[in-house]
């Protein structure tokens, strides 16, 4: 069915030329949009995929020019690459660019994603050898640094990116230390119980894992090169390369003076991907999708979600494109079952649902010992998530149960499961806030006022 009336014409501007922006532009044409289409991207590269940056690129199997995303169809768009958006004038229907240009729109899609939380300058963030890993250029720089033969790499933060970087470093034979503020890697995403399995993976691979430890400061030599880190336990750790993997911050600075409800946690929008103003009303003709969008998920009420998951970027881009070209009566609600994956230390880890809101966890299939198992997560007697470690072919069965709001613990009697399911506390740190930003690296449970999840010495 084609779009109604004005939906197919006019000027649409997509700010953000990564996965969500590209797929949204393609979906707009699929939906029958024939008007002017402009994509704005701050990086000088054509759209590329980020997941391999922390894996195959760091380990050297792929160079970054082999991470370019396929363009699935012609979109006849104007591309403004290498020019960041710096401002949004909603009443004037204009986006301002860093190079001074102004781009007019009738409808706007915000798909600016996130950036890696930087290390504070005052704690050594400006030193040569201190890296973050989010963009293609970040990956090129870090890969070069790893090839320079550092005696030790320090990874700050034991989330997914931290684990993937540490894993790649071990593949390269480098000494690695990972510091993690809580009692286990991945604890904020999967809880302490499964986090302890992740800790085993780190240690089995030869990672020097420092739990309940933060970095007070990074220190350099007179030439400004990183030389050591001061840890919270008093240790001074020599390191020539540090990778700051302490989470992501939504790219919303350019929206600061707009009327949108946008901050470091994302752009607030409704279920139809329509951006909201500070007072909670819908801002006409402005939409958001991908890592930057934060919206209420019908399956998980009470938790505005921001998902920096690959499939969410694709799915939300499609929903936004549909809604941008249709009247509100024909709008779709974005309600995918959250899903993400990570490969680290030779192990495949996949998740469906929302483990972070769980209070309990139970292993339903396989065993911890062989690092091949499925764990189910429950919240107040309801199944809300599942994680499969090296068991990717059984996870869809759990997805169906989660969507069906099955009870927890689920009655499965799986042949490779325990005789009896005994759920335990899932051990999520900082259980306090109803706000959820379910991202691969930052803790979703820190109240907004508590600031960054994991930073330098306060």
């Amino acid at each position, binding site marked *: 069915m084609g779009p109604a009336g004005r939906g197919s014409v006019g000027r649409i501007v997509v700010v953000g030329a990564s996965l969500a922006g590209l797929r949204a532009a393609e979906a707009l044409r699929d939906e029958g949009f024939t008007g002017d289409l402009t994509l704005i991207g701050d990086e000088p590269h054509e759209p590329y995929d980020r997941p391999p940056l922390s894996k195959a690129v760091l380990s050297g199997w792929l160079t970054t020019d082999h991470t370019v995303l396929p363009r699935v169809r012609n979109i006849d768009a104007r591309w403004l690459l290498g020019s960041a958006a710096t401002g949004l004038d909603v009443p004037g229907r204009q986006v301002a660019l860093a190079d001074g240009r102004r781009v007019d729109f009738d409808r706007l899609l915000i798909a600016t994603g996130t950036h890696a939380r930087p290390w504070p300058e005052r704690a050594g963030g400006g030193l040569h050898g201190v890296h973050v890993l989010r963009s293609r250029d970040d990956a090129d720089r870090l890969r070069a640094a790893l090839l320079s033969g550092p005696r030790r790499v320090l990874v700050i933060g034991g989330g997914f990116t931290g684990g993937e970087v540490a894993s790649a470093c071990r593949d390269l034979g480098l000494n690695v230390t990972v510091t993690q503020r809580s009692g286990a890697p991945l604890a904020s995403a999967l809880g302490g119980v499964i986090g302890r399995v992740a800790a085993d993976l780190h240690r089995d691979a030869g990672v020097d894992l420092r739990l309940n430890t933060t970095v007070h400061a990074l220190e350099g030599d007179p030439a400004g090169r990183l030389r050591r880190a001061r840890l919270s336990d008093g240790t001074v750790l020599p390191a020539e390369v540090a990778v700051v993997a302490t989470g992501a911050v939504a790219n919303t600075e350019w929206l600061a003076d707009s009327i949108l409800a946008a901050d470091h946690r994302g752009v607030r929008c409704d279920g139809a991907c329509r951006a909201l103003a500070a007072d909670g009303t819908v801002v006409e003709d402005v939409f958001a999708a991908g890592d930057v969008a934060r919206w209420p998920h019908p399956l998980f009420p009470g938790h505005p979600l921001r998902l920096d998951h690959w499939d969410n970027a694709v799915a939300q881009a499609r929903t936004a494109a549909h809604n941008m070209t249709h009247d509100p009566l024909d709008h779709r609600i974005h309600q995918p079952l959250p899903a993400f994956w990570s490969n680290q230390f030779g192990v495949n880890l996949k998740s469906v649902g929302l483990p972070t809101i769980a209070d309990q966890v139970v292993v339903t299939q396989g065993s911890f010992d062989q690092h091949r198992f499925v764990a189910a997560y429950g919240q107040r007697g309801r199944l809300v998530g599942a994680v499969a470690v090296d068991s990717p072919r059984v996870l869809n069965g759990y997805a169906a149960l989660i969507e069906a709001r099955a009870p927890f613990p689920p*009655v499965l009697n799986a042949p*490779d499961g325990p005789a009896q399911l005994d759920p335990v506390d899932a051990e999520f740190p900082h259980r306090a806030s109803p706000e959820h930003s379910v991202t691969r690296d930052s803790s979703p449970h820190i109240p907004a006022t508590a600031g960054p999840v994991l930073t330098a010495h306060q």
Partner: protein
Amino acid sequence: MTTTTPCSATDLFTHVLRHGNRADPYPYFAQMRQQPVARMDDGTWLVSGYHEIAQLLHDPRISADRLNPQDAARPAARSLLVQDPPNHDQLRRLVTQEFIPRIMGMRDHIHAVVTQLLDAHTTPQPGQLDVVAELAYPLPVTVICELLGVPREDEPVFGSLARRLTRGLDPVDTQTDEEIHELQQARTELVQYLEVLIQQRHTAPGDDLLSGLMFSQDPSGGMGPVDLRVTLGLLLIAGHETTVNLIANGTLALLRNPEVLARLRNDPALATPLVEEVLRYDPPVQMSGRSTLADIDIAGTTIPKGARVRLVLAAGSRDAKRFPDPDRFVPDRPDNAHLGFGGGLHYCIGATLARAEAQIALTALARRLDSPRLVADPPPYRENTILRGPEHLMVSFDRLTPDVQAN
């Protein structure tokens, strides 16, 4: 097909089992899908909807053990086809490690076998060819025997055992006492044959799959004699009785869709998606059995714990809820996530080999047969319901040309 009174699941399944309906069971599958999960009078559940089958293939509450206590002839040793994790996973890993490296890079060899088989019938004159007897059957059989290390001269023995054992896969209540007895006899003969073969490899290992399975370097060790026999039996049946139907069903689809045949003749790359469409449209394996380990709420009903379940893969792959225009043969159908090789933990191990054999065989037929047409439509079908396919597929042609262009 229009009926005013909806048939029960039991009636529909009875129709499907009837040999007279073997050539076209699909109208019955379409009726089945009106109730995608339905209980039969014998307590078995028929699942015919795509999404329902897909869910159950991945459901932790499902076992591959058919729980078929009535089957008096049930063998004591179980193949990985009917085993669950963790045993299944260990056996499968062993087979995968030994099987897959031996079939990768095999396309040139398959092409050579196909060329040789068709060269025997090359003629500038009009003629006829039984595609089943002359290509679809001997191709996979030659390949599986080479892989396993079965001496070429033993193939007829092996082949006849496979045929006799295949019938045993059909529902037990469709078989006569005589057939069941015959099945046990065939199993005994197979065990005897394999034991000799295994004994030979013990003294003189080769680089074949059998030797590989026996002397695997996997940390879990090689296969014990019982698992080895059962696994070989499985590979034997799979190698003899499935790909033959894929090639035959594909040939049938090509001959019934001459415009597709013409496209394939001019564009061999079309064989890649085309074989997937054969696997969707007319799959060689029509059903797969499972049982439930817990109550399962699905499609508005509940399959109770301990029930036998029959996943009608061939019905699911024609579900309009998943595939637009499902009864049409679309050789380059996009997003063709058919159920032809099953799914989940038990996804067909031989899929890569079957695909390669079918792609190469169908392309060769399209290129080398001049003006082919079916002698009988529908062709005669074999008795088997589950591994379903034509007994013969007589094709007449104006010429059968030499292989002018080796790919």
